[in-house]
């Protein structure tokens, strides 16, 4: 029974971390149709922002939950203003441009920080479940994911900002005719997507360490989750993370991490074959 509870926590954690690393991409790709191949590097930058701030004496919670998203959000707005805004509607071109950006960011961070893994110890200690122990930080990651997803729901559904964002993405010209400034909405949306990626990178930094090429480990999984989820940002991310996280974690526990990854990829292929539009292409169509 203890093992079942422990496993349940691990599965929740897998779902939460998938949702966290994908939600920024879901906004940028799902809402704006920009294929952001530098997504992994946004996560990496978030990790570095948190670690640099913490080592300069900033409280660890502030550097993870405030500094990292703000820094990466600002970088996101700069990237949108200097690169992405010339490429809306040209998916392949955004792919090439952001791929170049990702190589540039990897090179830049290597030049600044070197190639060594850095990290901070996970705070919060550990706790006992019967005969087993697990880290308190696991629960914190699950909590952050829940708050982020709930926050997005509230913003998109309940606020004027969310309404304007959704409207602009659906029909920019109509929004402009109604007095909205679409370039500004695009920049802000891209910045929020980047900020959420930065937050995810920072929250996962104590667990996985940070090095310049860590983005590679994240980017494929986040694309799989977002594409598997389909068009709706929130319900897509949640449903795909739940499906893939559960499969990945249970397969890893039952066999080895190698088969865990294989199981995740196999599930993704089957899913895309059966539901080419992703999960929300058929289910939860009215969701956000």
């Amino acid at each position: 029974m203890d093992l079942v509870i422990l496993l349940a926590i691990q599965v929740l954690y897998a779902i939460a971390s998938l949702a966290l690393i994908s939600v920024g991409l879901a906004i940028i790709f799902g809402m704006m149709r920009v294929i952001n191949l530098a997504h992994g590097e946004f996560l990496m930058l978030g990790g570095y922002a948190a670690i640099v701030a913490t080592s300069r004496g900033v409280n660890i919670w502030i550097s993870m939950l405030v500094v990292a998203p703000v820094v990466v959000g600002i970088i996101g707005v700069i990237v949108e203003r200097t690169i992405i805004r010339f490429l809306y509607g040209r998916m392949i071109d955004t792919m090439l441009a952001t791929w170049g950006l990702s190589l540039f960011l990897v090179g830049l961070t290597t030049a600044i920080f070197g190639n060594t893994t850095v990290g901070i110890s996970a705070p919060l200690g550990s706790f006992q479940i019967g005969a087993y122990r697990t880290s308190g930080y696991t629960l914190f990651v699950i909590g952050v994911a829940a708050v982020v997803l709930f926050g997005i729901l509230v913003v998109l559904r309940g606020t004027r900002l969310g309404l304007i964002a959704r409207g602009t993405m659906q029909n920019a010209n109509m929004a402009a005719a109604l007095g909205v400034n679409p370039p500004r909405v695009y920049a802000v949306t891209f910045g929020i997507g980047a900020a959420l990626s930065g937050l995810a990178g920072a929250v996962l930094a104590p667990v996985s360490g940070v090095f310049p090429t860590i983005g590679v480990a994240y980017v494929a999984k986040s694309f799989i989750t977002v594409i598997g989820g389909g068009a709706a940002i929130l319900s897509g991310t949640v449903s795909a993370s739940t499906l893939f996280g559960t499969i990945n974690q249970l397969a890893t526990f039952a066999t080895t991490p190698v088969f865990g990854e294989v199981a995740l990829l196999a599930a993704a292929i089957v899913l895309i074959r059966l539901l080419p539009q992703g999960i929300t292409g058929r289910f939860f169509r009215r969701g956000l």
Partner: protein
Amino acid sequence: MKVDRRRFLRGTAAAAAAGAFSSPAWAEDPIGVASIHDLSGGLDIYGKPMVDALTLAVEEANAAGGLLGRQIKLINYDPQSNMQLYTQFAQQAALKDKVAVVHGGITSASREVIRPVLDRFKTLYFYNTQYEGGVCDRNQFDTGVTPAQTVEKLVPYAMKKWGKKVYVIAADYNYGQITSQWVKKYVTENGGEVPSIDFFPLDVTNFGPTISKIQAAKPDFVWSALVGGAHISFYRQWAAAGMRKSIPMASTTFAVGNEHIVLSPDECNGMLICYNYFQDLKNPVNAAFVAAFQKRFGADYPNITELAMGTYQGFRLWAEAVKKAGSVDRLKVIEAIETGISIDAPSGKVTIDPPTHHCVLDVHIAEVNDKKLNVLEDFAQQKPSDTAAVCNLIKNPNDNQQYVIKI
């Protein structure tokens, strides 16, 4: 810039004068030594100390008058953790630079990429990393420790201290695969059991399910053969789950890339490791070496690693053989080594074992404690018995392969 006749003449005259100045007529060309070690990319934590040690060894030899009256010229190549560049640089070193010897390769993969190239172009090759054993090639010398020298010592030591049930986790490539088989063999021979061996691709960072699995298996200790930057997160997650104090750990890969300095003491104190060299070894040769090293690279140099020492010893062994052979000719040097060459190194006496081209050397078990590696026990003059079981280059000089030893 326009160059008129007068300026051209003046320029060439100056160049000729400078040339005459720097190379007196009686001096021969320097001896070329190539270094092919990753100074960038994922493996640079291992490569940089190796190149530093090699640089020091070459500078020391030159300061002592060079070899055979000739200076030594170190040619550094950085393959950037990229196998294709390894091939390219090995060819350049052999064909363009015509070096006397190549020191290089960190992973087994990079070694297996350049070994055939250097065989084909008849260029002597030293591989100075601790590895899984079994390479048998007359053109190559392996100065790092193999599992028979480290795993065989550390397994019984840890089992005596902690108990008989050993859970093995390893990196998923040939080092991890082969080393974990050795661990299993020695654990079984010592009357213990291995409930499971788990392999991890080099980029895995989520170890949560494995940590639960290890707890469910209730081993007496965990053996780690994890490698590289991503796998450091295992030690973090292990400590975060509060496991460091309840299940201890032993390893023959930890600290090779100075992981004990990257991690906090709370995340790795008490771990047992086993290598040929530790910076804290107490002997006069090592004291002089550490002083020279810190004078050259700074007193704040984090820690001189096992791999750096392997490279330093590799160069010294080669230089000794050249002196004995009186030549840098490849075959003459090999023959000189095969009479049995040995040096008094900072790690103790190191001798090349002629039939295997591996080294007989001292190994030490140490414990990680507050970013230091404290030596607990010494084992003198360990033979590479794993490779010796399959390889005899005196009997079969034409043998050329890596044996995967059946366990």
